[in-house]
């Protein structure tokens, strides 16, 4: 261990790529865990195909996992990678464009046999790891399959099973290169294969073999050290967006003292919230996999009437099916959290890719005047806070609320200095109690000064009342066809949502000057990229401001003023321009759209270039 030269690095981006069946996602998440435990800041981005398992060896079947970690703050999963690990020819072909010039390639030699080259559609006789096409890179060719089989030959496993461990060989190799401990993975493998200890052992053996292989071969001249990042003091864990969303919902249930009722119909990339929640029934969480999205939202509405923290989730296509029922919830004025884990559309679109193109649907996609609050998360860990806040608003203001996340946040991971239960804000639910009647009559649409009505639960004697989707008379809630009343109620419902602006923080700048040439306004998952870009620009001497919106409706009270402090406002979005329209409409300010619609996050360089372009003008 002492013989090799260790290079110190502040930042490394590694991209693992291989066939969907190669265990790439597992390799990536294990490396992530060890890296997090080593104290680095990090961000990850899994990039997998829409097919469950497209034919092995083809480009369509390539699965990727990118990890960016550093001894400094890390805000994105990285524009380009320093190290590209490829298990076969298709993985190389599909990912080479993600590698920095001069970067390291670690290639499984056995994945470049004739069959694999053919499947990857290399021309006859061409093998990129044998010709000089990779000259610009540092290429390490490792016969991973062969070596794994070799080290497991006495394990008693068949060849197929042995080959299943080859990702662990690679993981061991990388653990050596980046001086990571194998212990967390050993613990993980032992528990994962508790029932098949021989498989667990084989995996561990393969990992150790990879580690030793790196130690004893030429890979040795590539050993790196990435120091722990100077992060805020505290206890951290690594967390993925959908997991954080699930935790946030459970936490909101605890802090509101309400059971969580989560009803959904599976859809990528939202399903993992269901999977996560269904493992925590001991919190009293009810998870319902309904027959379709309409039934899911409908049953959540039923549960909300019954007094649950009712939640429904989907991606764009499924959300659109729920809009009629959401409209019912707006006129009912009952709490309901609608999670839209956005993906690239329209229609089925690119189902495993991210996009921010459901904002307009969230704000305007309902028949009639049906305003509701919209809250968006900015990073995987922030999904926890943002969905907690969505729950708070829904419960405290008796309204459906949209929570917007996306495929990048959903599957991305980052270190999280998690809160303790005691740190979390209490959610105050306004129940009507027995006796809350006027002259013996319960008035379900009587409001407090915020215009919020009370929640009267079935089972409470004396509060029997009916709610419906027909326009309701002010205060009594009885059906009313009175024209004046209708206008009044439409305005009240709008005003109630507007009033929420008094109960959310004013918009703060994330960084940059309070007045000046340029403000970048973002929302959602572009947070890390914009932050990183502006930080780099600042280091390059350009001080540009950044405001990132959590509240898309209503906007923070000061947003209009804030914007007007700048000569230019740039609104980067992963869509064809949506927030920018809301800003232009509300503040009559010529905000400038900047759009990328490729199913991928912005690259830091893209934001920087755009800023340069605007400043040069």
């Amino acid at each position, binding site marked *: 261990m002492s013989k090799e030269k260790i290079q110190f690095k502040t930042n490394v981006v590694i991209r693992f790529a291989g066939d969907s069946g190669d265990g790439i996602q597992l390799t990536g998440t294990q490396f992530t865990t060890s890296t997090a*435990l*080593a*104290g680095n800041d990090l961000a990850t981005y899994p990039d997998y195909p829409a097919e469950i398992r497209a034919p092995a060896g083809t480009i369509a079947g390539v699965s990727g996992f990118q990890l960016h970690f550093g001894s400094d703050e890390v805000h994105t999963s990285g524009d380009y990678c320093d190290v590209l690990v490829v298990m076969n020819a298709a993985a190389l072909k599909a990912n080479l464009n993600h590698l920095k010039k001069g970067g390291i390639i670690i290639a499984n030699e056995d994945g470049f046999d004739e069959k694999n080259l053919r499947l990857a559609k290399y021309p006859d006789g061409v093998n990129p790891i044998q010709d000089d096409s990779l000259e610009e890179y540092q290429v390490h060719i490792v016969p991973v399959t062969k070596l794994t089989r070799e080290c497991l030959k006495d394990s008693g496993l068949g060849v197929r099973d042995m080959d299943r461990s080859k990702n662990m060989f690679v993981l061991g190799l990388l653990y050596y290169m980046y001086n990571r401990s194998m212990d967390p993975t050993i613990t993980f493998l032992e528990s994962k294969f508790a029932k098949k200890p021989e498989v667990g052992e084989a995996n561990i053996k393969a990992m150790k073999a990879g580690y030793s292989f790196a130690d004893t071969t030429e890979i040795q001249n590539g050993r790196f050290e990435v120091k722990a990042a100077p*992060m*805020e*003091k*505290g*206890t*951290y*864990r690594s967390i993925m967006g959908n997991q954080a969303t699930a*935790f946030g919902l*459970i*936490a909101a249930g*605890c802090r509101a003292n309400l059971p969580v*009722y989560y*009803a959904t119909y599976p859809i990528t990339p939202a399903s993992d919230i269901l999977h996560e929640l269904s493992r*925590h*029934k*001991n*919190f*009293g*969480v*009810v998870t319902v996999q*309904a*027959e379709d999205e*309409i*039934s899911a939202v*409908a*049953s959540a*509405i*039923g*549960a909300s*009437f*019954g*007094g*649950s923290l*009712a939640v429904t989730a989907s991606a764009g296509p499924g959300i659109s099916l729920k809009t*009629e*029922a959401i409209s*019912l919830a707006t006129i009912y004025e009952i709490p309901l959290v609608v999670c839209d884990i956005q993906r690239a559309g329209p229609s089925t679109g690119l189902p495993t890719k991210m996009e921010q193109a459901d904002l307009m649907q969230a704000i305007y996609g309902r028949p009639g005047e049906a305003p509701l609050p919209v809250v968006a998360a900015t990073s995987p860990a922030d999904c926890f806070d943002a969905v907690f806040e969505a729950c708070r608003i829904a419960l405290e203001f008796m309204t459906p609320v949209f929570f917007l996340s996306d495929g990048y946040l959903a599957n991305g991971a980052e270190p999280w*200095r*998690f*809160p*303790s*239960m005691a740190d979390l804000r209490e959610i105050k639910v306004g129940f009507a109690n027995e006796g809350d009647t006027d002259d013996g009559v319960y008035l379900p649409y009587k409001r407090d000064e915020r215009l919020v009505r009370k929640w009267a639960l*079935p*089972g*409470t*004697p*004396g*509060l*029997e*009342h*009916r*709610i*419906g*989707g*027909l326009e309701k008379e002010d205060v009594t809630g*009885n*059906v009313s066809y009175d024209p004046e009343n209708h206008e009044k109620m439409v305005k009240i419902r709008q005003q109630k949502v507007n009033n929420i602006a008094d109960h959310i923080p004013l918009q703060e700048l994330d960084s940059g000057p309070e007045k000046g040439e340029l403000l970048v306004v973002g929302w959602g998952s572009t947070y890390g990229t914009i932050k990183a870009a502006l930080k780099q620009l600042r280091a390059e001497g350009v001080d540009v401001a950044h405001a990132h919106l959590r509240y898309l409706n209503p906007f923070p009270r000061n947003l209009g003023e804030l914007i007007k402090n700048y000569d230019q406002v740039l609104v980067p979005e992963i869509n064809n321009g949506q927030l920018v329209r809301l800003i232009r409409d509300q503040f009559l300010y010529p905000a400038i759209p900047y759009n990328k619609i490729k199913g991928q996050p912005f690259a830091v360089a893209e934001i920087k270039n755009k800023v340069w372009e605007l400043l040069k003008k």
Partner: protein
Amino acid sequence: MSSTQIPENTSNFTSKDLVSDQDIRWCPGCGDYSILKQVQKVLPELGLKKENIVFVSGIGCSSRFPYYMNTYGMHTIHGRATSIATGLKVSRPELSVWVVTGDGDSLSIGGNHFIHTLRKNPNLNILLFNNEIYGLTKGQFSPTSPEGKVTKSSPMGSVEHPFNPLALALGADATFVARSMDRDPKHLQAMIRRSAGHEGTSLLEIYQNCNVFNDGAFFAYTDRATKTDRALFLEHGRPLLFGEGNKKGIRLVDGCHPQVVDVEKEGLSESDLWIHDEKDSLKAGLLARLPENQGNGEGEFPSAFGVFYAVERYCLEGAVRLQIEKARERMGEGDLDALIRGDHVWEIK
């Protein structure tokens, strides 16, 4: 799996207490009035607390029902009442949840939730007001309107073969299937009672007269001149008898081919006839399709009224609760801090 039981107490209310202060807005003469009355009549007998009763409806004339009941109520959106009711019941198993729906609401736009609710079997009571027409939208054919029905939207007659709602329900693995009618108050009351008593989803189809858009669709079953020949009332363990003085019976030839027989003329004893068995799913299916059979010997087949099928199967809400209990047993009551912390943490000092 034991299902959750609705607490049985003595009721704290009378029929009058169930009348809400809202003016009823059905057409004068509409069959819905009778159904409302029978429900208000039966509910106080069931040992429920008024505050634990919730009526959930979709959209349609029939779906105005909750407004007229002084209980908790939800008038929802078209077709989704069963799903909304399921959410309520699963989250609050102690409530007595009633669904009021129409043939359009439950079988047309709501068809998917209808069949899925039946298979999942939450303990709901579904009252399906079947008037074989869309009432509220002023008279288009519905999925139960007969072939050839002339309506506003089918001026040359409907080209659609209709559902047999009870056969559909049985195909969807319903655990309780019954039929009654607005114009037979006593029978309707009895059927409401049976529905309420069933643990699981009870489907009660109620033939309901829409006197504006489909007047008289079911009069044959109540009109003096025809009723005894056209309506057959089922009783568990009793032979299938109908007609003037119960002189006609139905027997099963080869065990499965129904035949109308003149009991006296052929000198048959009760045991020669088809004995109704509520637990027999096959026979329930046969009953649902009874009038579809070609008439034979002694004339046309009647339509059956009563409980076609009633079996026990665990209720959805019970199974959901049980898993929560088991999870708590296994993992202990949820500990938020522990959950959030997870297994792999590190400290920055």
